[in-house]
């Protein structure tokens, strides 16, 4: 597939209802990215996004602004994606994924060898704040690294990071959309953030 995001946008523009194109222009890439964390192929994710547009247009007359439109759109996507994931044989809920869930306070797997037996940082692993955070060239490099590492995260962690840190939703909203408990959401977020941090930290030495 050439570019799934473009495909979603394009299919939105071809749809008979111009409101689908409008929705797709605002939320298409974000929804596709999130849908992809629930289901295992681009094609199914695109279908879920298409179903979401229709469900939104259908539900819009009853939408009273209890939450922002953005949260509403993501919530509809979450519901569609979860019921779709359930019928996909290989899909399991995020909370049940091995190593993706239930250990609050779990440390970044990349940090397993960063501590000595007493739980102190080993000298060579001790983190230091990223240098020159306002250097735009460096930031772009780090952005590229973090985007790639995000793609590689397990679905649940990726979904939590997308909702919280990329899209800026709050914890409660993310829990509803993901269909997980607050503790679970926090663990997914912690694991995800730690893995992304580790990816940047590992590349720091090679950055210009």
């Amino acid at each position: 597939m050439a570019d799934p995001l473009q495909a979603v946008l394009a299919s939105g523009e071809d749809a008979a209802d111009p409101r689908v194109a409008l929705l797709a222009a605002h939320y298409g890439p974000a929804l596709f990215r999130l849908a992809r964390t629930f289901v295992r192929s681009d094609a199914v994710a695109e279908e879920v996004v298409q179903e979401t547009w229709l469900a939104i247009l259908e539900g819009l007359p009853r939408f009273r602004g209890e939450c922002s439109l953005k949260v509403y759109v993501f919530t509809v996507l979450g519901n569609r994606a979860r019921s779709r994931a359930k019928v996909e044989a290989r899909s399991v809920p995020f909370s049940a994924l091995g190593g993706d869930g239930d250990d609050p306070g779990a440390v970044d797997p990349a940090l397993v060898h960063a501590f000595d037996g007493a739980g102190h940082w080993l000298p060579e692993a001790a983190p230091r704040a990223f240098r020159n955070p306002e250097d735009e060239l460096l930031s772009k490099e780090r952005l590229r690294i973090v985007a790639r590492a995000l793609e590689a995260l397990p679905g649940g962690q990726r979904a939590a990071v997308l909702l919280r840190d990329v899209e800026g939703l709050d914890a409660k909203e993310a829990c509803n959309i993901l269909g997980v408990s607050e503790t679970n959401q926090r663990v997914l977020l912690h694991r995800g953030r730690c893995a992304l941090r580790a990816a940047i930290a590992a590349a720091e030495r090679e950055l210009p």
Partner: protein
Amino acid sequence: MKMRTCQEIAGLATEFAEGTLPFGRRLEVRLHLWICAACRGFFAQLHATRALLGRLRGSADSGDEAALLRDLRL
């Protein structure tokens, strides 16, 4: 009070940022960060990572959701 290790403090980073830690633990983290440069570095890296992630936003946050809603309800 038994001092928490760096490993434990690192494991509390997200709960600390979320504001979900009980008062006593929150204080422990603050005190630890005050004396431990490596953990400060770790927290700073996490903070910087989140700032970068915000730049990957995929939805167009139209300042005017009301206008979008009006268009959608035509």
